[in-house]
């Protein structure tokens, strides 16, 4: 569930990677800044950057509020023109027992609006989630630029 998927795949070039712990609200701000910097590295447009940073902010807050804290790996991966920004949020919280409900707009077990997961899924180009109740949750998202 954890360490394996962080290893870069064959034929891919790991351009840069950074792990940020998510323990406080200030860390959520840090995540936003680092994701914005990573999107700048791949030459993303303003709207592409805004979407990805917003998604990262939602997911980091979920990690903090529902996962009891955790970390995110921010990586720029891929070759020259096919580079993308990949984020892996990991927590060891209670996990998600009903995934389809958790991915529904407006559903929340906390005090939120229930837009975090479903919203982040709409804002990213790739979205993958795995959760084991009692063990934790891993959310992996990626985005790239359509700019020539």
């Amino acid at each position: 569930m954890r360490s394996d998927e962080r290893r870069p795949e064959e034929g891919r070039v790991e351009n840069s990677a950074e792990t940020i712990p998510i323990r406080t609200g200030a860390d959520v701000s840090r995540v936003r800044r680092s994701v914005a910097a990573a999107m700048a590295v791949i030459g993303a447009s303003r709207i592409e950057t805004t979407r990805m940073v917003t998604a990262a902010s939602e997911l980091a807050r979920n990690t903090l509020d529902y996962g009891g804290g955790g970390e995110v790996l921010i990586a720029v991966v891929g070759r020259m023109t096919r580079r993308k920004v990949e984020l892996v949020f990991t927590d060891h919280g209670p996990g998600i027992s009903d995934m389809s409900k958790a991915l529904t707009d407006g559903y929340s077990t906390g005090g939120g609006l229930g837009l975090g997961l479903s919203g982040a899924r709409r804002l990213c180009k790739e979205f993958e989630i795995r959760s084991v109740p009692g063990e934790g949750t891993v959310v992996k998202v990626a985005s790239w630029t359509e700019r020539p």
Partner: protein
Amino acid sequence: MTHFLEPNRIPIFQIGDCLLLTIQVDLEDRMIMTLKDDLAERIAKTHAKGVLIDISALDVVDSFIGRMLANISAIARILDAATVIVGMRPAVAITLVELGMSLQGVRTALDVDRGMELIRRESSEEAERLHEV
């Protein structure tokens, strides 16, 4: 009550019967909580008719900040003040809608001037209505 310019506090300025605050920093949760308290107190103290929140410097508005803006707007409404969010960046507007937040019940204007105009118009309309009654 004195308001010092603290790094963790967003200053609130009074212009006529409007309160203006500019959110320029990457908001941290603690600052949002402080802001709600400060603003509610200032509205009650100054009898402000409007609150202008300038978010032109924010490059990201997530659901947490969106909810904060909606909350502030609701608090102000109960204290008889209208809130107008001004200066939202186009990319932020697009992202908010895609995120699923349409900020219903929150007034917006493109800049501070237009926001101020909106508040003036509304409070004079309200005065007229009261006059008619």
